[in-house]
């Protein structure tokens, strides 16, 4: 993003400190792509260590970048733990959320509801910059004494309380990121409630907007408790309070000098109170994108629009009452775990309904297999696998065996990696012509899809085998210590190789991005996919203020192949035949 000529105020106002939702959306997108790449690089180092424990990294420069973590290129355990914690944090809070919510939400939502901008443009910019700062803080923390946070992305105290300085940086970074999300979500909700164009009733909102609305509510109401918890952990670390420190701790033979009386479990409750809703924050925008792309490329309405909307609302509501399914092993009794199992099973139902609606939407369609559609279709079974493997985790009896194994890692990566990331790729390919006026290359896109599909499964499928074989997560040597893991450990090499290939599979995407940006040819129509939703009514790319005339909405969002209509799509913004 660094650009040479910076003396021109116009440039700064227009591209850096802009308050235009579209520019901010693109800023979010570029920054979060960068962080996805960082998160991926971190995990590649981890995967190397898992496959070849104790062997020096293949690239010498790595030990120059991380002299403390990779002395002589060989990873030390605390660095592995840092990488794990930071991979999780960066992927979740700096990669997926900003891309799915910040970037797509910012760019697309105002266009889809017919708004000139977000309700509070300055707040929008502030939200981006808080996110940016949070990212910087997280990155810098790799080079503070003791390295970055190394107590998992979950940061359970007392471990996190007695951890090295990196944890303090992590907490400060999180406070910034939380602030960013809060500002963003206030803005999104206000925008969707207030700035819908004439005729855009709630039941005419594209499903993507619904998904973003619920996501915004999740962020708005689930994040503050973690912010409170973060502040308390900061107090514990900086001012020696004992919110999360019980009395009588002995760390490496020395009594810890704090007053005690705190509760380690309290942190877990506050953390998961956020983090379960957070997983729906990771998936809902993706589901929204997939719904848009599927409707567009089956050339028929989404099947069960209403059930989709009610499901997503119900899912959002209930997600505040399931958090302790991450805590079955903390010593829960039968009654309270029965409660959380029940809510967990209930909440799986709306997910099942959403997926079912999307599957059934295919039936009777006239399916175009372009790149966005391929990614959207890829999302369905991948999310299916991830979701289904959530079920045995949701029952405490079966979670007893699976908790903290690679089965859990497999479960959630299926939902976030080949799930959400695929959905986001679908969104990138789908809206790229609206953002830039240029169409991405189909051939490269298809290579990107198939290669990613194969290698994603190559990375994550064996995790289920390992997990069932009793291999635990967060092990520096991938489980080598344990003799009982021996039969399934050979998969580590396979998974690592797949992860590396997964990296190579992104090269066509990168080439595609650059080549498309450089090419001269522009899309001929403002609506190249022949879509029905409102973002395609604007000029391409949309100017400041978005719409040339105030848009009016005449119908629901997915009027494709309406019987008797001349074209196979009837946009929301097209006046009825009679009124013409």
């Amino acid at each position, binding site marked *: 993003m660094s650009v040479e000529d910076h003396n021109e105020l116009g440039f700064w106002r227009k591209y850096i400190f802009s308050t235009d939702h579209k520019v901010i959306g693109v800023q979010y997108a570029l920054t979060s792509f960068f962080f996805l790449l960082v998160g991926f690089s971190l995990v590649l180092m981890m995967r190397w260590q898992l496959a070849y424990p104790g062997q020096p990294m293949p690239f010498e420069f790595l030990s120059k970048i991380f002299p403390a973590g990779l002395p002589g290129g060989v990873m030390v355990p605390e660095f592995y733990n840092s990488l794990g914690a930071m991979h999780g944090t960066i992927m979740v809070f700096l990669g997926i959320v900003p891309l799915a919510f910040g970037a797509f939400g910012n760019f697309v939502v105002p266009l889809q509801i017919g*708004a*000139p*901008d977000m*309700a*509070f*443009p300055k*707040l929008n910019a502030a939200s981006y910059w808080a996110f940016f700062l949070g990212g910087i803080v997280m990155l810098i923390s790799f080079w503070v004494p003791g390295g970055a946070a190394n107590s998992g992305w979950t940061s359970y105290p007392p471990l996190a309380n007695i951890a090295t300085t990196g944890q303090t940086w992590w907490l400060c970074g999180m406070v910034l990121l939380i602030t960013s999300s*809060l500002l963003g*979500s*206030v*803005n999104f*909700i*206000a925008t969707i*409630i*207030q*700035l819908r164009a004439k005729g855009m009733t709630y039941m005419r909102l594209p499903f993507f907007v619904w998904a973003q609305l619920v996501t915004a509510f999740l962020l*708005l*109401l*689930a*994040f*503050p*408790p973690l*912010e*409170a*918890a973060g*502040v*308390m952990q900061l*107090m514990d670390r900086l*001012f*020696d*309070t*004992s*919110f999360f420190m019980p009395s009588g701790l002995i760390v490496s033979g020395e009594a810890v000098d*704090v*007053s005690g*009386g*705190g*509760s380690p479990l*309290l942190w877990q409750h*506050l953390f998961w*109170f956020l983090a379960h809703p957070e997983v729906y924050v990771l998936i809902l925008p993706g589901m929204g994108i997939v719904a848009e792309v599927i409707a567009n490329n089956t050339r028929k309405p989404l099947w069960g629009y209403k059930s989709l909307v009610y499901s997503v609302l119900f899912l959002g509501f209930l997600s505040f009452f399931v958090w302790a399914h991450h805590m079955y092993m903390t010593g829960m009794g039968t009654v309270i775990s029965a409660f959380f199992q029940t809510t967990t099973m209930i909440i799986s139902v709306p997910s099942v309904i959403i997926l079912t609606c999307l599957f059934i939407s295919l039936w009777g369609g006239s399916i175009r297999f372009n790149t966005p559609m391929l990614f959207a279709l890829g999302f369905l079974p991948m999310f299916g696998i991830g979701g289904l493997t959530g079920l045995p985790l949701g029952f405490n009896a079966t979670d007893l065996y699976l908790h903290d194994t690679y089965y859990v890692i497999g479960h959630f990566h299926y939902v976030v990696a080949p799930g959400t990331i695929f959905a986001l790729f679908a969104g990138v390919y789908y809206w790229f012509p609206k953002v830039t006026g240029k169409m991405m290359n189909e051939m490269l896109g298809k290579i990107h899809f198939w290669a990613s599909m194969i290698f994603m499964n190559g990375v994550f499928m064996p995790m289920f085998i390992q997990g069932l074989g009793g291999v635990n997560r967060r092990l520096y040597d991938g489980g080598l210590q344990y003799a009982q893991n021996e039969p399934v450990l050979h998969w580590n090499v396979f998974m690592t190789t797949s992860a590396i290939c997964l990296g190579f599979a992104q090269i066509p995407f990168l080439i595609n991005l650059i080549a498309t940006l450089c090419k001269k040819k522009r899309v001929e129509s403002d609506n190249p996919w022949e879509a029905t939703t409102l973002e395609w009514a604007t000029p391409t790319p949309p100017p400041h*203020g*978005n*719409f040339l005339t*105030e848009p009016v909405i005449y119908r629901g969002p997915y009027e494709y192949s309406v019987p008797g209509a001349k074209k196979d799509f009837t946009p929301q913004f097209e006046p009825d035949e009679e009124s013409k």
Partner: protein
Amino acid sequence: MDIPYTVQPRPDTGLYNAKVGIWLFLASEVMLFGALFSTYILLRVGAIDWPEGVDVLNVPLGTLNTLVLITSSITMVMAWAGCVMKDFKRFRFFMGLTILLACVFLVVKSFEYGSKFSHHIYPKEGAFYAIYFTMTGLHAFHVICGIVVNAYLWGPGAKLWKKNPAQFTNRVEVAGLFWHFVDLVWIFLFPVLYLL
């Protein structure tokens, strides 16, 4: 196109944008302070012994501060009412008073903190002081934010009064909502920390 409903309420929701925004923000604040109160409850029921606020905190000062904050809340509504009545002087007067009272609150609070520190009582003293300092500290931070916002509206922000009094009145209302919320939090903090 301009952003609609910055001043006028949207007909179907009956709200202007900033009002929706501030209430959403306050909802998140409810969650924030709610989480802290939850922490308080959990720490307290799990504690072996818990000092009674009366014995360790300065109740008269706390009471005084409660009265100060409540008064600042009514001066805040009065300032807003001044705007509605198109009486700018009245607005200025009451807004100034609000800011002043907020400052008084902070000064009193800092005396309370100071006397604790001078007795070498810090947050690390125990669970009660940890939660006491955290909650009142966070609340004080909100008071400071409120002062900044109100001072802006009293001073440089007041220019808007000439250009667009309706929008200015909205801003005052929104700032007021925030300020009343800060008051409301204290209304719960005071008995919970000082009296129980």
